[in-house]
């Protein structure tokens, strides 16, 4: 394999070097140093890399002419193309928005009955709704609306305010306890109540979903006096005021006696941020239809 070639004709070889030391195996120059018989190859740099370097340099010259490049005092050279990344980005964003406008604008009307029955439109819009949900809602309500302690489930058929998309849209737009326009809902603290009374009440509330609560005891009176105004006489809740039903299987913070006692002692003020500033009215409506659909899917699955 060691066919000897003339090292002076190899790429990168120095034809003029006088005192060259050539490696007999590869034919390449060595660095000239000798460490007790060990020498080091001075392998020439690959030509194609040099060409690529030259090409990138040439491109940089072209780019300097065409694109914004050099700082000059308080300004910079703007280039013949006159590109500006901010302008490009805004134009690109508007183009993206314009692409969606065809179907997204139909959600701006807020005619939810028509929107929900338009299967072709929903099919087109669902991927966008899923992305909006993942980016804005999933952090609290879970990727498929499964919720978590303190963050309401969206995929079941129990609602705090209403499962009607019109009402959901309002909640998304203005939030709950988020700003002056928000829905307001506060579970006040009952820390003025005797500890023993709170414990009894907590036990009563914990027993409500199973129907085993004793309706004749003193805790039933406590419930009627303190809780029924919002949660209803039987604890069935009130959609108009966002007071959760205490009789169904759905909970936000938990309905075991210990959690209820905590709720009674410290109160709860859940916050749902307002999205009106981040999302357009059409996007809010799209999300409302999507969220309303989450629970009906669940209902279908349950059948």
């Amino acid at each position, binding site marked *: 394999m060691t066919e000897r070639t003339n090292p002076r004709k190899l790429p990168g070889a120095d034809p003029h070097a006088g005192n060259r030391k050539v490696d007999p195996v590869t034919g390449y120059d060595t660095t000239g140093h000798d460490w007790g018989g060990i020498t080091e190859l001075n392998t020439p740099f690959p030509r194609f890399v040099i060409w690529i370097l030259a090409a990138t340099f040439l491109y940089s010259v072209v780019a300097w002419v065409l694109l914004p490049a050099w700082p000059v005092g308080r300004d910079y050279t703007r280039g013949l193309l006159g590109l500006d990344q901010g302008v490009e*980005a*805004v134009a*690109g964003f508007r183009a993206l928005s314009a692409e969606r406008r065809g179907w997204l604008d139909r959600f701006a009307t807020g005619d939810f009955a028509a929107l929900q029955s338009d299967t072709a439109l929903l099919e087109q819009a669902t991927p966008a709704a899923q992305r909006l949900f993942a980016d804005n809602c999933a*952090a609290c309500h879970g990727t498929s609306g499964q919720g978590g302690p303190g963050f309401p489930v969206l995929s079941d058929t129990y609602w705090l305010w209403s499962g009607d998309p019109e009402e959901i849209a309002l909640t998304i737009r203005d939030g709950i306890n988020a700003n002056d326009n928000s829905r307001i809902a506060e579970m006040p603290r009952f820390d003025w109540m005797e500890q023993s009374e709170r414990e009894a009440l907590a036990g009563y509330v914990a027993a409500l979903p199973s129907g085993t609560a004793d309706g004749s005891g003193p805790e039933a009176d406590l419930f009627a006096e303190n809780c029924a105004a919002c949660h209803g006489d039987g604890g069935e809740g009130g959609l108009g005021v966002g007071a959760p039903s205490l009789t169904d299987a759905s909970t936000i913070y938990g309905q075991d006696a210990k959690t209820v006692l905590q709720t009674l002692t410290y109160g709860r003020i859940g*916050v749902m941020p307002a999205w009106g500033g981040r999302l357009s009215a059409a996007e809010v409506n799209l999300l409302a239809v999507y969220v309303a659909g989450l629970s009906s899917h669940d209902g279908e699955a349950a059948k």
Partner: protein
Amino acid sequence: MLRLHYNLEKISMGLVGAIIVAASIGGLVEIAPLFTIDEVVEVPDDLRPATPLELAGREIFIREGCYACHSQMIRSLADEIDRYGPYSLAGESAYDHPMLWGSKRTGPDLARLGGKYSDRWHVEHLIDPRAVVPASIMPAYPWLTEPLDTGLLGDELATLARLGVPYDEAAIAAAEADARAQSNPDSDGADGVRERYGEDIAVRAFDGDPSNLTEMDAVVAYLQSLGTLTKAPYKVLAEGKQ
């Protein structure tokens, strides 16, 4: 040209000189614009400085290395605007020393985070990210429930004031009190915070407990302030850049 380099390598001082020339071109292009930065970067009229509590949160953000995974700069690209909101302007960070733009996004960008999630979500998420986002790879920061050390806040505001951040004498003197008041809406000092930093400053118990000022209060106050210090980027997006 290869010959030139080959020969230059043999003249050490010549090579040193050539390296200096080559490196200073790159240096000049990066450094020269900094000399005119005060005139070139437009500071938005409505830009407000961070409150002492937000500033304390920012220090914790830096201490915990949050910037290593979270950028605070939305690039001027269409799909970044689509996901995060209007792209970041240089002027937004005029009062940030140091700025925390970052470039690595192991987690999402935080430049427009303020108001996106509830305080409670932030608290739960910082204590145990998996509790609210099961797929998260973010580390947990349970020690943020420790009390906040406010001892250096006055000095910090004074230092920033020297760097051009508009904190006046009164703000510097009230730094510690303002930090406490911002997390306790029923306290006497709450109005002072609003007076000094604006009516729509968030004054509330960020960690859910108004009686104790914790590092969690500071971090959540900071996170809820991100992107809310000026409306300028929204104007640029709405009106387009000239």
